[in-house]
């Protein structure tokens, strides 16, 4: 990471040097004037607006993970820089993160957004470049959203934004009265940021226990050819407050759940289709989503090295029973197809997923003091895996500049191999302090 980070820092520095000095001065702070007069409004934004934040974050386990030397799960200083430049024809966006990560002992640099947006004709919006993409109706549960996720950030207690990892994607959206079409083509496969044993140990069915490989697990990725890209399509339309959507995806499973012939973790080929509906119902909102995952290279489910087909279903309801108190409930099902064939052919049948994996989620969120205080508890509970994951947090917005978050990631379960259970030794608490500029 270090050489590319250095390279990046140099590039950023060069960019900053090249910018005209007045743009960096930012002497016309739109908020500097306390009076209700014209000056306080700031100029129309023609210059580049620079903003972002600096954040310090620390997190630690409640208990030691015997496989890892560090007890800490989060230890970083992060600098976000954002700007955008809009003309009649083009919109350029820049959003970068530069972080020193004390756990991985190195600099980490990332463009979360580095895109150019433009219109093609009247009805097509294009956005090309490194970007974060989201669709689907689930709350922290993803069926048709097969854009990359960063579960390591999520479990370590970084901001929720970091659950979504950027990808280098060409996105085209065509809007029309009949139906809207979204096409996102990611020419080079971008997997999830998966558990690799560096920050958190993970369960290995081959070892039959948690492992923390050194060097960290690096799954075998599909070769960088355009035929190994990802294509995601969404057809969507809102009619009378009802949001309908159809989805299709062609690419790979985003987690390294397959094995090569040499038993190295890798990504199985995946084709998925799905549908969703979201609409008001009673005092709240109801959402339904389904997806079918075809494991293209394991059609009959007999190949022990590859994941099987899955049918995924989600139903959710969210409402506000009291002012400032929001409750969200979701039921999620993963139905592994050809389960008999999977068990019959598996070298470690006891670690294979149940035919039906049920997960219930609840989101409780309470806002107080004009949203300055936000108390939140998100819980994943799987009755079939007999495991759980709780995400309590308290967020305080002290001012427009300063805010902090105190939270936890608590994992537990009966077995060792299930998804949340494997992270039992990763249960942690964290604190993040952020200064916005």
């Amino acid at each position, binding site marked *: 990471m270090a050489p590319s980070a250095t390279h990046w820092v140099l590039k950023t520095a060069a960019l900053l040097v090249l910018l005209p000095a007045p743009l960096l001065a930012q002497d016309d702070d*739109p*908020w500097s004037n306390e009076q*209700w007069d014209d000056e*306080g*409004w*700031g100029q*129309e*934004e023609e210059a580049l*607006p620079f*903003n*972002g*934040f600096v954040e310090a974050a620390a997190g630690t386990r409640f208990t030691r993970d015997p496989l890892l030397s560090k007890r800490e799960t989060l230890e970083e200083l992060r600098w976000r820089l*954002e700007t*955008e430049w*809009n003309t*009649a024809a083009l*919109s350029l966006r820049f959003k970068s993160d530069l972080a020193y990560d004390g756990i991985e002992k190195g600099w980490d640099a990332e463009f979360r957004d580095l895109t150019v*947006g433009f219109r093609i004709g009247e009805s097509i*919006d294009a956005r090309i470049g490194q*970007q*974060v*993409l*989201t669709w689907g109706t689930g709350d922290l549960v993803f069926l048709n959203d097969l854009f990359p996720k960063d579960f390591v950030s999520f479990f370590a207690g970084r*901001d*929720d*934004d970091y*659950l*979504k990892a950027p990808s280098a994607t060409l996105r085209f*959206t065509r*809007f029309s009265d009949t139906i*809207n079409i979204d096409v996102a083509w990611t020419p080079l496969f971008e997997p999830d940021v998966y558990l690799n044993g560096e920050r958190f140990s993970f369960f290995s069915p081959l070892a039959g226990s948690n492992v923390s490989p050194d060097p960290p697990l690096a799954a075998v990725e599909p070769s960088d050819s355009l035929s190994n890209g990802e294509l995601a399509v969404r057809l*969507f339309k*809102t009619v009378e*407050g009802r*949001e309908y959507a159809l989805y299709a995806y062609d690419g790979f499973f985003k987690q390294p759940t397959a094995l090569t012939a040499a038993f190295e973790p890798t990504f199985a080929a995946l084709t998925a289709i799905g549908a969703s509906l*979201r609409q*008001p119902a009673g*005092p*709240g*909102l109801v959402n339904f989503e389904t997806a079918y995952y075809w494991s293209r290279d394991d059609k009959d489910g007999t190949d022990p090295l590859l994941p099987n087909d899955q049918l995924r279903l989600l139903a959710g309801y*969210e*409402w*506000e029973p009291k*002012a*400032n108190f*929001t409750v969200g409930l979701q039921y999620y099902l993963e139905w592994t197809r050809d389960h008999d064939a999977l068990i019959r052919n598996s070298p470690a049948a006891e670690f294979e997923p149940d035919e039906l994996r049920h997960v219930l989620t609840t989101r409780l969120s309470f*806002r107080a*003091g*004009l*949203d*300055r205080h936000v108390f939140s508890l998100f819980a994943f509970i799987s009755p079939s895996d007999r495991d759980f994951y709780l995400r309590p947090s308290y967020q305080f*917005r002290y*001012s*427009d*500049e300063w*805010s902090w978050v105190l939270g936890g990631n608590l994992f537990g379960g009966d077995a060792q191999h299930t998804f949340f259970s494997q992270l039992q030794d990763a249960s942690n608490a964290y604190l993040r302090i952020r200064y*916005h*500029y």
Partner: protein
Amino acid sequence: MRAVLTLCALLVLVADGANAEPLTDADEIVARANLASYYAGADGRSEVRMIISDAQGRQQRRQFTVLRRNVEAGGDQQFLVVFSQPSDVRNTTFLVHKHVDGDDDRWLYLPGLDLVKRISAGDKRTSFVGAHYFYEDVSGRRPADDSHELLETTDEHYVLRHIPLDRQTVEFSSYVTWIDRETLLPMKIEYTNPAGKLYRRVEVLEVADFDGHPTVTISRVSDLLGGGQTDMQFRYIKYDTGLPEQVFTERSLRNPPRDWLQRPRSGT
């Protein structure tokens, strides 16, 4: 010449204004006040900034641009709100399809996640982006949600009391409005809680004329029990800009319509 103009203006005021036969029907006053406050022109745009002060005097700020389009006068409306300040909410967008018969549809776009979040209908008498204003203050409360009674007609105001038809969905037991007889703008609204205490006040501090529409340019909401207030100022107001319906769709959440958001050359 100037004297003639002044005289003409005075005559218009006299004919149309305070000395005209006062309205006596509470529902009609409310309907006309609703039109004057929320439906001026076929559409409108305004830049808005808020200073939110808590009881300790600490301040937070918000700045955004609002686009509004009437589907029909006094009927359904569409709003698009695009935030520019502070930096953590920059480019957050908020879309409302307000329905007179039924609940509003509301979406919030969070650019950090590229997430279009739907907001449930119940959630409307809660703080709008951390201000003392409620979501409902921004897009307007439906006249049909309350019963209205004309308490008094003064030289300047119609004074009305409003009682919610469904007490479960609101935090007040009644509110009183002072509606300007001339402009029909509500100049002051005071809310009483179920304990009988006055706890919230919305007041208009400045009105100016834009394209022939008397328009609120400064208003204030005060928390009378907890302390604290939010001042809201409107600038760069323009009516009848020709905003098309397509501006008020998911497309604008992700890609705010720069052409329509641009500050008009004229106007204050």
